[in-house]
């Protein structure tokens, strides 16, 4: 993963993880697997774990500890009302950022009508 991508993800991964949890509750490793399926292929499990610690500390998720056959008890994370509210705020901020950055891009490449379609 490029340095720039890592830096960009740093600010948005929290919202991305909450968005994954908005569809259903999940174990930490399930969240990492889901993100990889969604195209975030280089994401480290530890990075997701550190984020989960953070959103738990901030009370954005409810956590249930489930005993495991091997290893420590595993935590199941569910989005709670506070987390849902935070996710809504994330979408608003994301739309704002995306729209404004896109407008800047239009100024640099005015001929391009669908800038989001390129570069994949």
């Amino acid at each position, binding site marked *: 993963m490029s340095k720039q991508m890592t830096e960009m993800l740093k600010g948005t991964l929290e919202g991305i993880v909450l968005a994954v949890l908005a569809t259903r509750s999940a174990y930490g*490793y399930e969240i990492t697997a889901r993100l990889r399926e969604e195209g975030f292929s280089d994401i480290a499990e530890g990075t997701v774990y550190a984020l989960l610690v953070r959103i738990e500390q901030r009370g954005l998720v409810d956590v249930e500890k489930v005993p495991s056959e091997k290893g420590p008890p595993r935590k199941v994370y569910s989005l709670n009302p506070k987390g849902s509210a935070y996710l809504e705020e994330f979408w608003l901020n994301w739309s704002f950022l995306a729209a404004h950055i896109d407008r800047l891009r239009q100024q640099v490449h005015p001929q391009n009508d669908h800038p989001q379609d390129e570069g994949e």
Partner: protein
Amino acid sequence: MAAAWIERVTGSLEDKKRWRQYKARKDQLPAAYRTAIDGLERYLTYAGAIVKGDVLMQMMEDLADLVEGAAADGTPIRDVVGDDPVEFAEMFIANYSDGQWINKERARLVETIDRAAGEEPSTGSDHGSR
């Protein structure tokens, strides 16, 4: 609490117990995972500069949960820590910043700038008031 006076001399006995439990968990790990957790622990200890014993122990226990879980699942260490272990470690440390030594200085800086801003004459240009 009766033990309070002695803990002032020895440090928290509860934290010491948690530390011993953490060390015991580490000893159970497969060799490669133990190497990884030792390396992470060393970095987190130096870079974290955490002065609150309970916060430090919480950090180490969270680390042990992660590494133990990975060892049990057979998740390769590289998949846990990623391409850049320092990046991961710094992100991990950020969760425990209220226990860091530097936190006292952060609070002091915020307070000083608040005071400085309060000392500014309110006449003249209206920078800052929108």
